[in-house]
């Protein structure tokens, strides 16, 4: 089943306690292989006494052409990390760098254009605009930029996600799995530097989920895409080249070529709560 090719080690080595030392410290522009990185990323919610730290001084980089999974229980900060990396949310302190651009220097419009032109998104649910057909949804970011999708590329993407006969349908006429495939096609259509997938299989049955993960894997292996996927599912994480573990706003683990078993084992070893949390959500 698994198409993964064994790849080089991830660029980051972390110590079990969660104190992260980046081997390829910024400036990230020095490293062409880094698609995105967080540098001493800190995010607080609320003010004063009620303030809660969602991210505590996190530094992490994601290499180009790789499929990384960010794992953690709910409240671990994995979604906040992804939102900040994707330019959907701002850090309280630290920096996010996407392909050499420091996001903290961008205003709302520039951030929006960055998301549109350089980042692809696959959300857990409610991925598509209900009034647009599948084809229009796929073309959405490119159309918003006022340009057209390269027809050859569009063909390749649509063939890959196997949606050719579904293009004229509206989201309400598609199954959940098909909707997620449209979302993947949309994320790929603009040839972004980086795709963020937020629990892309969270709402799907296991067969559809597997198909979605196959497509993501395929996009990395054969289209040279970079994907960062947030998940709490060890099975989903096993499709990635690397799994980064978050807990309480800090990185607590980082393993290469994860398998479902190694991920679960790591989760239990690092944080019994996380594994327990996983059991709960699965149950």
């Amino acid at each position, binding site marked *: 089943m698994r198409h993964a090719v064994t790849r080089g080690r991830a660029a980051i080595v972390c110590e079990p306690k969660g104190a992260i030392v980046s081997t390829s410290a910024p400036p990230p522009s020095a490293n062409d292989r880094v698609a995105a990185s967080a540098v001493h990323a800190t995010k607080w919610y609320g003010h004063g006494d009620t303030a809660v730290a969602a991210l505590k001084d996190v530094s992490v980089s994601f290499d180009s052409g790789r499929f990384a999974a960010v794992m953690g229980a709910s409240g671990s900060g994995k979604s906040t990390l992804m*939102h900040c990396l*994707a330019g*959907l*949310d701002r850090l309280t302190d630290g920096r996010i760098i996407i392909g050499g651009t420091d996001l903290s220097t961008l205003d*709302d*419009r520039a951030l*929006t*254009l960055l*998301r*549109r*032109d350089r980042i692809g*998104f696959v*959300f857990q649910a*409610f*991925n*598509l*605009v*209900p*009034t*647009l057909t599948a084809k*229009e949804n796929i073309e*959405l*970011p490119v*159309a*918003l*930029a*006022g340009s057209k999708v390269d027809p050859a590329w569009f063909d390749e993407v649509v063939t890959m996600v196997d949606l050719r006969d579904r293009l004229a349908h509206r989201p*309400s006429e598609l199954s959940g799995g098909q909707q997620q495939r449209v979302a993947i096609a*949309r994320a790929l259509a603009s040839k972004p530097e980086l795709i963020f997938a937020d629990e892309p299989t969270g709402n799907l049955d296991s067969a559809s989920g597997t198909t979605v993960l196959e497509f993501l894997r395929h996009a990395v292996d054969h289209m040279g895409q970079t994907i960062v996927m947030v998940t709490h599912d060890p099975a989903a994480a096993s499709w990635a080249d690397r799994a980064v573990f978050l807990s309480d706003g800090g990185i607590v683990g980082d393993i290469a070529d994860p398998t479902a078993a190694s991920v679960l084992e790591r989760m239990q070893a690092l944080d019994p709560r996380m594994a327990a949390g996983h059991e709960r959500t699965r149950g």
Partner: protein
Amino acid sequence: MFRTTLANLSRRKLRLLATSLAVLLGVMFTAGTLVLTDSLSATFDSLFSDVYAHTSAVVRSNQKVNGDLRLAAAGPTRGTMPDDLVAQIAKAPGVRAVSGNVQGYTQIVKRNGKALGNPNQGPPTMGSSWSMQRTLSPYRLVAGHAPTSANEIVTDLSSAKDAGYRIGDQVPLLTPTGRITRTLVGLTKFGSAGAAGGSTMVQFTLPEAQRVLSKRGQLDEIWVGAKPGVTETQVVASIQALHLEHTEVLTGLAASQQAKKAATSFLSFFTVFLLVFAIIALLVGAFIIANTFSILVAQRTRELALLRAIGATTRQVLASVVTEAAVVGVIASTVGLALGYFVASMLQSILMKGSSLGSGTTLSVRTVVGSYAIGIGITVLSAVFPARRAARVPPVAAMRDSAVEDHSHGVARTIIGAVFLVIAAAALVGAATTKSAALVGLGAPAGLIGAVVFGPVLAQVMARITRVLVRRTGMPGHLGVENVLRNPRRTASTASALMIGATLVCAISVFASSAVASINKLVDTGFHGDVVVTSTGNGIPLADVARIETSPEVASIAAVRYGAAMIGGQGTLFSASDPAALSHLVDLKVESGDVAHLGPGDIAVSATLATAQHWAIGTKVPAAMLDGSHPTLTVRAIYRSRLVAQEVFGSPETFKGSLVVPSAMIAFVAAKPGVSGSALAASLDKVVRNNPTAKVQTNAQYKRSAASQMDSFLKIVYAMLLLAVIIAFIGIVNTLGLSILERVRELGLLRAVGMTRSQLRVTVRIEALLIALTGTVIGLVLGTAIGSALIKSFGPNQALTGFAIPWGRLVTVLVAGVVVGLAASLLPARRAARLDPLDALASE
């Protein structure tokens, strides 16, 4: 359950504010109209009780012209009596005092040379005799003394003040017999108030009034005071026993009741006119309310389903939504009533300027009950359908994921709408081809109902057309169009509000522009003279006509006088002028016979009247004039153009028994060869300079002033319809705002994948624009069709023979629709653009 309802209301304050506003404005208009007419009617009541307060009996001529006339509002036109009746009546048993009176037109010329008041557009400007019987007159002196000689007058206090005169001043006056100057010797007040309802009153001695008002030896009314101990009925009987010819006698009470009735019937016309606009506003409001509630219910589907799941019955859910509507209705009606009362009292103080009459604003039980009934009724009725839908929400809907999307518009609804539209089209085409205006009365409402019911389909068509047009403008526009299409029913009912307004504006505009075109056509093809003389007062005194006639530049003149007589047993408006001169200067579109050679006792009649009465050339027609004469008239010609000639035309000699006022309403003048129209106008201007109400215009100027009069009428109507447009505007804002709340997650997604704020604003703007345009375009088409059918239905025998589509105005309506749409999108667009994508994505 009630507590849940209240909690809902307080949580949705902002959304319901807009709904309340729609009800509030409608109720305000209704309440204002009722309060104003009640107050005015109370004013008239006190006014007319004052007129005959001290009079036991009123004697007047029984010669009158009744019927469906322009003058009907002021009561029938009545003849006069010889003034020697006073002496006879004075001898009747039980009579203590007798006062003979005449009344007519007199207008004060202000210090600045302009005439005071305008009897054609406002309260009357009157002149009358000063009654020497102090106990019988409603007027009392407050300064100076009564007029004792022909040179002396008294006026009401506020008129003297407004015109800038004091006791001792020389006051120029315009009267039916020409301009005169008299000395002001006294100031009067009417009854308990300053002046009678804003009218102006100049009083002369009786002989002078009879001379000036051209009623020598004649009286309009004789007031009788009874001796102590003699009742009104007794004194009436005693006068009736005299068997005076051509008179009727009635008690003072009956006379004041009749006067009240005539005034009230005029007032009820005014009330109906205002209420029509109030109803339009409420109707438009009803769409907005219904729409808001259906959106709120759709959004609360899960909440309502949850209520059902935990055991609320269908009835309870229904009651909950209806109660919510009722609370909105109560609040909005209360505020609307208060505002309506306030606006009415302000209007009243403007209308009643210079009079202490009716200083109190009347708030009747009818107004209060009516306002609440309408406000609450409309709100609850509008909410019932959405409420029923809400009550039918199955409990399992609570578990479903997204908001209800409703693309359907129902086959039955489509068919019913189409049937109405077909009926409307058939009726309107029928009206135009068969010349039956009644069919417009069927076609217009059928068209409006059809457009509302068929609206979703029309909205879809509009959106599909627009989709093709905006395809090139990119994704934001495309999304806007798709949003309109996602719920055509909602789009249509939001647009309906604007549609009703646009329909009315366009229909009225087409009608008005055709009326102007008719006048233009008439002047161009029918006026063979060079100059038209008219008056903003009571016409051009014949003395002035004579001076025009003798001016060196004048080749010929036809001065047209109007009056009313019973002709063929029916109250009829007639015109009188020199037949040869008129047929030379005005083309009456004669069908048969000869107008130029009408002799005494000969008449020409309109084709409409001839057809209705089955008259032909040679028919002998019995007539009754105001002076009691009963001539037999002979039909000698039949004409089609009624604008100048009215229903019946003849020489002044023919109608002398009914031509009371020695003034012409309009005079057509031809210049001598070599004299241009404008040169003639300039020279005639000098001739009539002493009459500030006279208007000397070339044919071109006359056309322009007719058009501008129409414009001022249109402005009033547009101002009234503005309220409907404001409510429609609120409706679009409301619908867009609610739709945006409904789509928060989708907007978050769009922002996440790269839609900029300005692109999002464009999307909302396009949606608003499309809703507004849907309403405006349907209204344009429907209104133009209704207006055109109405004009075409009148046929060639009517005054309205012209037909003109006011393209400029229609384009203005379209532009106004665009502006309304864009303006309505401002707030919702800002709100949508401000959404934080992450919060939006996370929202439920």
